[in-house]
């Protein structure tokens, strides 16, 4: 087509997507977004039809997290839009850059309780970083550019753009000048560098506390360099896993509610916390007043609002971690502290000996981790299996471990893995799921079938909502209310219905060969691993308790 054709809002959308390098989108059509799906028909952008809009949102999240780019999803108005909300909330809590496009009823019908009309713009206020509703066709291009910019600037996050059907169909008469400045909100850099240097040189027992911000700031190299040159012992949040090289001798693993004993004790005894891209989340700190009670705090973050939100910083360094951390990178004299913690790390190392023939989930996940190819991307669902994955698998980059951290959303794992696999077609992608969580987005097996997405699913099956069952046993007198799933469907038969190769194992002796078979298989595979319903995740810091007072298994 060479003759100038009128450019509609819908075709403009695909132009802008391509200008932002977006080759893949996830979505589900419907009445109010039909003009966009009609324009898709002629577009080079590849669309993946998910089987629920929540799946589309999570696939966009997985795509964004695995590849370090923006993920895009589409939904129609009303129920399509509301089905995105859990995914948006998840992306907000974990600071993931996605752009969600929703269709809306025509502007003339808006506000009339029209068919499939819901105020998604109003709903978005509490679950996005920012949102737009476009009511002028000539604003659309600028809004879309802003949406991508906002998703990625500063602390990343989800942005929603609601586009009424008549705007999708309208002819663009005015183009947006891309060279003109979009938005510029200059924040004063707050950097107590000299204070931080002073704290650092006086510290005898410092700990580097690493969060999800490190990967998003693209500062893994700088953080590893800091850890190596200072020799500072380090701990990681759930989302920070992979930022520190797991082989670093001074790395103590995850801290917090299900953190390692060494990590939690070290933090409690520290006299200085160097916090990089982390936010003192309640799952990390346990009882806040008793968290690292003797430690001063140097807090690096991109978000001003995180400084002093839950813990006062003695020195705050706002802005780009990549540029700021090298200013504090220097050798420290902390040999005694290092040796003390290395000893603790050895004394409290994970143990995989486990009596009987029944399968021990931590050992399964350790074996998967040892056997999986380098640069494998692992996603998880939420529950005990998630914590076992965090504890017993090793990652050399945060983009290789995708888990719903801030929101803890069951149903995340499968669609996130689909997105991850599409963004990284040459890497192995493994989902670690639970028998409860997998049912929350089980329809996405149809997406796997349709596109032959070769994800490997390790289903840790305890026939329970295990994490809730664990809490009922420990804190609610063993009153097991609504946590039994022993009548789950036959997962092997279910997989077969979606042309997915599958196998069930329930004995220790089968583990190694089954994992090898799964990893060697070219296409999608579901390995159902039956475990004992009574296994617990240890250690556990009970609610409202200091982190060193953890409960441990027998």
């Amino acid at each position, binding site marked *: 087509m060479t003759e100038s054709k009128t450019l509609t809002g819908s075709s403009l959308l695909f132009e802008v997507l391509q200008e932002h390098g977006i080759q893949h989108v996830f979505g589900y059509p419907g009445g109010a977004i039909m003009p966009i799906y009609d324009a898709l028909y002629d577009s080079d952008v590849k669309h993946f039809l998910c089987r629920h809009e929540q799946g589309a949102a999570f696939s966009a999240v997985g795509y964004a997290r695995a590849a370090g780019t923006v993920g895009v999803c589409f939904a129609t108005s009303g129920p399509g839009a509301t089905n995105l909300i859990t995914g948006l909330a998840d992306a907000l809590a974990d600071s993931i850059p996605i752009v969600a496009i929703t269709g809306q009823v025509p502007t003339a019908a808006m506000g009339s309780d029209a068919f499939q009309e819901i105020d998604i713009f109003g709903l978005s*206020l509490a679950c996005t*970083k*920012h949102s737009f*509703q476009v009511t002028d066709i000539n604003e659309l291009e600028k809004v879309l550019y802003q949406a991508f910019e906002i998703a990625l600037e500063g602390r990343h996050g989800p942005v929603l753009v609601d586009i009424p059907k008549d705007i999708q169909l309208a002819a663009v008469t005015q183009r947006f000048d891309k060279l003109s400045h979009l938005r510029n909100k200059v924040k004063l850099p707050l950097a107590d560098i000299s204070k931080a240097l002073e704290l650092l040189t006086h510290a005898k027992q410092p700990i580097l506390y690493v969060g999800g911000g490190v990967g998003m700031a693209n500062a893994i190299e700088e953080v590893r360099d800091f850890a190596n040159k200072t020799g500072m012992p380090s701990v990681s949040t759930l989302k920070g896993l992979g930022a520190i090289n797991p082989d670093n001798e001074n790395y103590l693993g995850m801290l917090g509610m299900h953190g390692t004993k060494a990590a939690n004790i070290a933090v409690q005894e520290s006299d200085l916390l160097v916090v990089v891209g982390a936010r003192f989340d309640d799952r990390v700190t346990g009882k806040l007043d008793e968290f690292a009670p003797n430690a001063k705090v140097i807090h690096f973050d991109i978000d*001003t609002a995180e400084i002093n*939100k839950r813990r006062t910083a003695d020195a705050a360094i706002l802005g780009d971690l990549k540029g700021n951390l090298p200013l504090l990178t220097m050798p420290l004299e902390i040999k005694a502290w290092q040796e003390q913690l290395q000893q603790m790390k050895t004394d409290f190392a994970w143990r995989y000996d486990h009596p009987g023939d029944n399968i021990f989930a931590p050992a399964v996940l350790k074996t998967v981790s040892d056997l999986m190819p380098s640069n494998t991307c692992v996603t998880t669902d939420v529950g005990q299996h998630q914590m076992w994955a965090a504890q017993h698998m090793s990652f050399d980059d945060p983009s290789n471990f995708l888990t719903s951290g801030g929101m803890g959303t069951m149903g995340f794992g499968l669609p996130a893995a689909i997105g991850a696999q599409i963004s990284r077609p040459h890497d192995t992608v493994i989902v670690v799921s639970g028998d409860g969580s997998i049912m929350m987005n089980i329809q996405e097996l149809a997406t796997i079938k349709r596109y032959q997405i070769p994800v490997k699913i390790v289903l840790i099956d305890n026939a329970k909502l295990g994490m809730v069952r664990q809490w009922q046993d420990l804190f609610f007198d063993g009153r097991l209310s609504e946590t039994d799933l022993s009548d789950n469907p036959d997962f092997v038969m279910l997989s077969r219905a979606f042309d997915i190769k599958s196998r069930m194992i329930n004995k220790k002796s089968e583990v190694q060969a089954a994992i090898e078979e799964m990893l060697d298989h070219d296409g999608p595979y579901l390995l159902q691993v039956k475990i004992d319903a009574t296994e617990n995740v240890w250690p556990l810091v009970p609610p409202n308790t200091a982190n060193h007072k953890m409960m441990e298994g027998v």
Partner: protein
Amino acid sequence: MNPMTLNKYQLIIMADDKQVVLERILQVTRYRGFLINGMNAEVNTGNNVATITMTVSSERPISLLVDQINKLIDIKGVKVDNSDV
């Protein structure tokens, strides 16, 4: 929260004059644990600047709310003015 025992603050907020901006400020203020005692808003002015003054009270430090309002994309600036509260 007992409104009588809380700290009171007056905020002056400058924002891009978008229709949704008031809703955004109200949502953040409530969510972050601040009561609104009163407000005056000059919005939809036609000159792209909205000015909102609000009296709020909370047990929490006002910096917490200021930082969160500042984070809203449409906000140009927030000032705390305690001269007459």
